């Protein structure tokens, strides 16, 4: 077991190296003069010189990569180029809690929606309810997230005024109740897609579990249906669901750009997209790097947890 962990961690080193190289080279791949790209054609000569110096274009590329990497490893991602100028780390550290909260909320909602639906669909497989759920989840998977966000805003915020429109309230400033009211719609948008995928996965796993002998035994003992579904069948059916939900945490932290943009939330995605629109490359670099590293770390964690959770894998002694 310890060897597997070590191999998996070691295999990540080339991946991390390539990710860092890729994000570093981003600035060099930009066509034309970088100063003009960032500041536009009408800035002063001093400003162009500042941008070039800040990006270190007066040094050879290997030396630049070396110093960039050593700074990055120590948590210093440099400063951004377009005012207001601050360190990239500060900017990202302010944005990260938003993503974390959204990811946790969205995952909780996705479970709350998908687990009951999947259990009942599996229990009544082939029924009208099951067919309806199957069609609805297939449809939900085909709705792009910006469209889903728009529809939810249209119905729940514009027409029915149940939720406030856009923006964000930090729990430290306005309290958790206000914060949750603002976070509900974005989290629901994210949750719908995940819930659709979760439902389909859990349903098919659960149908297999319900064929097992011990379910028959439980039924023969006269256990109520909810007990059989929730207490006996759910846990053994949920291994692939747990893997998948781990993967979605990684994706939810980095892949919420659209939802952040629609609801104007101050998360990492907004930072990256606004920086990309203004050609503020250090900020794009830093954002992409942090998102990728978080994603890799979460995936590794899920990968390792899977071995502990699923006794079938544990027993083989992989």
């Amino acid at each position, binding site marked *: 077991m310890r060897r597997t962990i070590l191999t998996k961690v070691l295999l990540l080193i*080339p*991946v991390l190296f*390539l*990710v860092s190289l*890729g*994000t570093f080279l*981003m600035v060099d*791949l*930009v*066509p034309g003069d970088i100063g003009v790209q960032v500041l536009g054609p009408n800035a002063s000569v001093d400003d162009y010189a500042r941008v070039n110096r800040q990006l270190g274009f007066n040094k050879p590329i290997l030396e630049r990569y070396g110093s960039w990497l050593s700074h990055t490893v120590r948590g210093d991602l440099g400063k951004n180029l377009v005012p207001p100028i601050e360190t990239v780390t500060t900017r990202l550290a302010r944005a990260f809690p938003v993503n974390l909260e959204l990811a946790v909320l969205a995952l909780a909602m996705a479970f709350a929606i998908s687990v009951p639906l999947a259990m009942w669909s599996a229990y009544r*497989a082939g029924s009208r309810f*099951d*067919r309806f759920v*199957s069609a609805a989840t*297939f*449809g939900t*998977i*085909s*709705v*792009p*997230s*910006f*469209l889903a966000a*728009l*529809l939810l*805003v*249209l119905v729940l915020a*514009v*027409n029915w005024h149940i939720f406030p*429109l*856009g923006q964000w309230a930090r729990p430290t400033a306005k309290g958790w109740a206000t914060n949750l009211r603002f976070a509900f719609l974005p989290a629901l948008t994210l949750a719908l897609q995940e819930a659709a*995928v979760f439902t*389909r*996965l859990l349903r*098919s*796993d659960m*149908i297999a579990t319900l064929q097992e002998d011990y379910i028959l035994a439980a039924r023969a003992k006269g256990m109520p249906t909810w007990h059989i579904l929730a207490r006996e069948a759910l846990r053994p059916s949920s291994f*692939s669901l747990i893997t*998948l939900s781990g*993967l979605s945490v*990684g*994706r939810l932290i*980095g*892949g919420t*750009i*659209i939802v952040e*943009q629609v609801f104007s939330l101050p998360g990492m995605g907004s930072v*990256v*997209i606004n920086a*990309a*629109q203004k*050609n503020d*490359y250090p900020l*794009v670099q830093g*954002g*992409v790097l942090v*998102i*990728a590293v978080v994603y*890799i770390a979460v*995936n590794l964690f899920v990968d390792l947890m899977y071995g502990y959770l699923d006794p079938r894998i544990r027993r083989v002694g992989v």
Partner: protein
Amino acid sequence: MSELALVESLETAPPEHRAGRSRRAGLLQAVGFLAVGVAAVALGLTEMTHVAGLIKVPTVLVGLVALYLACDRVAKAVWGASFDTGFWMSLSWLVLLIAAAILAGVLPLGEYKNSAKTIGTPGNLRPDLFSRHPLGTNNFSLDLLSRAIYASRVSLATALFAVVVSVVIGVTIGMVAGYYRGWVDTVVGVCTDTTLAIPALVLLIAIAAILGVPKTVPEAIVKEGGALAIVGIPTVIRLARANTLAFAGREFVVASRALGARSRRILFKQLLPNVMLPIISYAFIIIAVLIVAEGSLAFLGLGLQQPQPTWGNMIAEGTLSVLRQYPHIPLVPGAFMFLTVFSFNRVGERARQRWDPRQSKM
């Protein structure tokens, strides 16, 4: 994409529809549904100022469901109970859309781009099937149906270009890695892992930031298509590699090698046809994902700019004030996009059940 594939592969086949419903009853039901459907859609899409949009949108939806059920009953009565109506309707939508996209220049459509030509037409018209602007106009009085069709050119061409590039490059690399193994396989594995380690949209935005915003339609197709291909290639590499591994150990390959066939012959004559079939069936689902990705880029303002229409930037026209008063402006392109993505997913699912060796029960 991979999650979807995972889920699909674990799914059981859809339940058999209950047999025994007589043809006559089915056709009678169909007539009923048809009447309800036509009435509801016509009512919902006719301009009536005193009816709120909140009533009209559900009316249209109910009408569409009724029309679907009508088609379903007729088709099942004519071609038997196992007829897959959803699949054939998806295919028809795609054929219709592609035909409209190709023929957009000669179809009698309204103005889609040049607001100087629409000074006489009122803006923000609501959908009215029996008028000159069946799906309404936007705030520059540009015809929404026409814009949605011209936008489909961009989306379809970009996704198609990207998927062709992804398949050609991905299959080549994936087959080489899966056939020769060794250090080639390791290097390819690390590279695909790296690309997949970054969320697709973040990667797309980074690439779009490097390439700059496209100005013309061909430029958009090449730039966005190239960016989308970089996202698509790793997935295709993995699929091609897995399928190559699965087939490389089979008897016909071993026999071929025993008869003295060279690696090149085995790769092209034995492995390529077997690897291509599942890849092509996955390609439909990849196209669906890429259309969403292209739409996202355009929605975020990194794709084609107004007044050139794409589904993404048309949906982005739906700002809060527009949503309040004229929700149809983002909903029309949204419906086009949903139907197209849904149809590609549906067709892809069917293709995979038919052609993917891991799906069919061999």
